[in-house]
């Protein structure tokens, strides 16, 4: 059984079909790339997987259970966490708190226990802070824990967003253009960190990216979208030589 499976997924916005008959499977510990020209519907796929939008047709199953109709926060709790194309951090609070907020649902102490500072508060807060610092150090952000998120340089903001998504303890991580705006060195580092987190947290990753060397270098499987439909699936090598894909990117027939 695949970890995440989308079957015949489609959505229409006021008569405009943004996605049609999208099928794919994500296996455990797999890094899969979702590529395609601008406007192909890649981010819409993410919005469906996290139930920001309701699909008009098709199903999404995580570990064999449908997630259709769930609230976004419930999907996250169930194991699908994401980042956003145009970074959405909690800008005016600390880097550490950005990560701790995603751990909120994994803690148990009640509001009253928190206000009264009962032992459960101290115990859970300490454990959480430790875990958050661990996560930050994966991305080499531990020294910036107390800075406001808005003060981080662009590349580090992207990393923080990934750290925050990981803090939600996902089984599937959705990365929307993680390398956008990064220089070659940063991109290279990011490739290494993504492989590292896949192994360390044993999760599967689905990522949208335009940087082809990045995608080809790290993804075991690729899915190519064009005009809301899947036009090709396969390994990096198969995709590279697929005439349909080449046509879609070059705009010819």
């Amino acid at each position, binding site marked *: 059984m695949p970890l995440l499976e989308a079957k015949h997924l489609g959505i229409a916005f006021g008569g405009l079909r943004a996605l049609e008959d999208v099928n794919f499977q994500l296996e455990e510990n797999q890094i899969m790339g979702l590529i395609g020209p601008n406007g192909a519907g890649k981010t819409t796929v993410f919005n469906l997987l996290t139930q920001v939008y309701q699909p008009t047709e098709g199903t999404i199953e995580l570990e064999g259970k449908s997630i259709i109709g769930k609230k976004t926060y419930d999907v996250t709790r169930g194991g699908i966490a994401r980042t956003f194309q145009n970074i959405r*951090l909690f800008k005016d*609070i600390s880097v550490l*708190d950005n990560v701790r*907020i995603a751990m909120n649902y994994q803690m148990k102490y009640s509001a009253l226990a*928190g*206000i009264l500072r009962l032992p459960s508060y101290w115990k859970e807060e300490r454990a959480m802070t430790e875990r958050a610092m661990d996560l930050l150090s994966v991305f080499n952000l531990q020294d910036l824990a107390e800075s406001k998120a808005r003060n981080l340089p662009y590349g580090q903001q992207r990393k923080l967003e990934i750290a925050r*998504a990981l*803090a939600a303890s996902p089984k599937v991580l959705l990365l929307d253009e993680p390398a956008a705006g990064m220089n070659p060195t940063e991109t290279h580092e990011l490739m290494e960190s993504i492989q590292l987190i896949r192994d360390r947290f044993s999760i599967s990753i689905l990522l949208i990216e335009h940087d082809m060397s990045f995608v080809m270098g790290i993804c075991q499987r690729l899915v190519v979208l064009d005009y809301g439909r899947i036009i090709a699936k396969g390994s990096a090598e198969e995709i590279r030589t697929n005439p349909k894909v080449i046509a879609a990117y070059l705009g010819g027939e």
Partner: protein
Amino acid sequence: MNRKKVTVYGVILVLILAIYAVVTGLTDAGVLNSYYSGILIMVCINIILATSLNLSTGFLGQLILGHAGFMSVGAYAAALFTLRAGLPDSIDFLVALLVGGLTAALFGLLIGIPALRLKGDYLAIITLGFGEIIRVIIINLDFTGGARGLRGIPKETNFSWVYLLAVLTVAIIFAFIHTRHGRAVISIREDEIAAEASGVNTTYYKLLAFIMSAFFAGIAGGLYAHHIGILNPSKFDFNYSVEILVMVVLGGMGSITGSVIAATVLTILPEALRDFSSYRMLAYSVVLICVMLFRPSGLLGQYEISLTRLFGKLSGSKGNKTTKNPASGGEKGA
């Protein structure tokens, strides 16, 4: 808990007690007459109102324009309870306050469930509408005394009670902000979509913060009712809601110490400037506009005046780099 934190808590406690001792001492010595102690009681009531509104507006990021409406619900509920229930004096007052707070919280729940589903500014309008409707209803009902007002409420509020409750309110809201629940509330202000994607049940936390706000406004209402002795529905109008909002905005949206200071100053200042009272609202409006134009998040912004930081500077050590300290001195200005 580390030693520094214990010291800070200790110093805050000493400060709170010292302020209390000074005020009661001056009152006993006859330096503060009943006019001045009346002002001090209003300072504390406004501190409760401003910090509780800050929870919704500053930390949750939802503009509430009917805080005085929740206060009036609490005031009438508490006053009617005292007048009708006939409990022994010793517990009557406290139970009445609790009734006031819970009634206001109930109204918060009833309004919040539908209103908080809506995005953007509609909550502001709905709370404004609520404040107006509540006033019309109170005026048109018999058991609330109608437009003539509700009279004969025993004046059981004194400085000790109101001070204690102000300190408690500030401490509770401060403590709440630094729990996982408080952080979830803040995340909604920062980015609702990202909060939802981080597993935060935004509807639940909006409702929680909103109800807490209403609860404390209700307590403040109960204190007010038992302070003045007469309730007049026209007191709790849109202008009073705006006055509380000005305290929050001036102090800084998201700064509890800011609210405490602003509530104190903005209660005392108009009394000191009574001769210019016709200019007061005009001055408020100009200040409000200028603060928004040049410091959109309020004078202190989200900055908290912190004893921990102060100690750090005094002892010359670098600010502690470990974790955010939940015990920065919030109760200082009370």
